[in-house]
């Protein structure tokens, strides 16, 4: 069975590596809400348009003077956007329910399926291993803390830390 797992892993790696290298002319994905398409590589430049999470854009390379700005083409329009707005991979389709069809990441976010707590299966497991109760309370507390941190706050934090801005 180990061989089966390794075989599956090899397949996953092949799939992953085929889409891995980021080269000019290839596509990247917008990850930020209301990402700006700018006329020049300057945060104060004229805004040519607004991009949505999941939008596929053609990447033409980073700006030689400021690598945080990237030349992209979206909907036939060329311009610049900040690195913080770009994601290397197309968001996976998610299966929100056992009897449903895979849906895209944004629809999944709106479906309510993304909201979770420590599952009943986890609580059942904890019941079978009494030593796990303290740990369970800690994980549940951490879930409460995680819920209090919004995706927008997290993205803004990273942009501030790495100088990406928005």
């Amino acid at each position, binding site marked *: 069975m180990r061989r089966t797992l*390794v075989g599956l892993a090899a397949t*996953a790696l092949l799939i992953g590596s085929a889409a*891995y290298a980021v080269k000019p002319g290839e596509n990247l994905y917008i990850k930020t809400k209301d990402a700006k398409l700018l006329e020049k590589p300057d945060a104060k430049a004229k805004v040519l348009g607004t991009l949505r999470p999941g939008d596929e854009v053609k990447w033409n390379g980073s700006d030689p003077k400021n690598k945080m700005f990237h030349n992209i083409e979206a909907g036939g329009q060329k311009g610049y956007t900040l690195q913080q707005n770009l994601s290397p991979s197309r968001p996976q389709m998610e299966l929100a329910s056992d009897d449903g069809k895979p849906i895209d990441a944004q629809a999944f976010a709106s479906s309510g399926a993304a909201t979770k707590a420590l*599952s009943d299966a986890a*609580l059942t497991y904890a019941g079978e*291993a009494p030593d796990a109760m303290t740990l369970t309370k*800690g994980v549940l507390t951490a879930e409460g803390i995680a819920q209090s941190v919004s995706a927008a706050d997290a993205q803004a934090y990273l942009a501030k830390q790495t100088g990406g801005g928005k």
Partner: protein
Amino acid sequence: MKRLAIAALAVSLVSCSFIRGNVPRPDLGTAIDAAAASVEIKQKYDDCKAFSEKPISYPEEVAIGGAIALALGAKSQGGVFVEVSPEIASLSSIPKGKYDKQKPAPGTGPKTDLTKYLNLLGKGLASFSDRPTIEWVFVVLDSPTPNAFSAPGGYVFVTTGMLKQVQNEAQLAGIIGHEIGHVTGKHALEAYKKSKLVSCLSAYFGEKASDGAVRSVLGPLADDVGRIPFAGDVLASLKLPVFDPNKLSGPFVKWLTNKIVEWLSADGYGDMEKGADAIGTKVLAFSGYDIAEYEKVIAGLPEGVGAIKHPSNKERLATIAEAKKDVADFSGAGKAPALSPTVAAAVK
């Protein structure tokens, strides 16, 4: 019709032996029984394979992921490094379903602040992954061993030992990025599929898995198959349209979870570790942190320590170096901001 086909197969086998002349002719009834048994074993194996290969929904992933998170967390033995929510601190058991939508209000203190920081950083990094909208949860574990691990559904654990070891935020981001790679790659779910397969085969065959006829169908997998006291629960779940870990019996959930953790601990993720390092490197580059800082962390890790077996540091560094070339235009060279003061306040 099936019986007729089996009889025909058996007669054909007997005929072939007879025609060759020098092979003793087996009893026709015995041959029919053996062929029928072989067909039945193959049919059961195929049923189990289909059961284990069904697409896994996010609710199913989260259901088993929570149990795996607890099992892996328990191996660290130190508990979660957080001020437990006053709301749940005094409970002797957690009511099922109570916190499905509205989580318990956090406590207050430096450990809570640290967990907030870890979630701020972790969720920011996860937004660059290909699963940006699942519910990510980042947890600090109280353990002196420098370690980090993840569980399906979006659970990522970092030990206090690891937080003491990292020198800046880029290093911590690299560690978290690697774990994000395991979750987005759904690596632990391969072990989950195996545990479903083995539970099904164990329910059908039990200790008979070592018999020649069964072993010839199951192959090396027969070594993992054995008697399970909850075989009836497994067989009942096969008949359901949806396999939901939340509705399984305690012994069945415990067995599935422990098997997954046992296999991951013994064998690790194999080449999937390289996949996680490659994904982590990509996430790190796009988020704007310096990948060189992550390489320093890997170079300084003690070999062979942790809840899950990893490749050697040398192998991991080779993978990162290769991945780094592909995202050279996105590297945040020199971007290694200081860790949040919450880290020093809580653990340093």
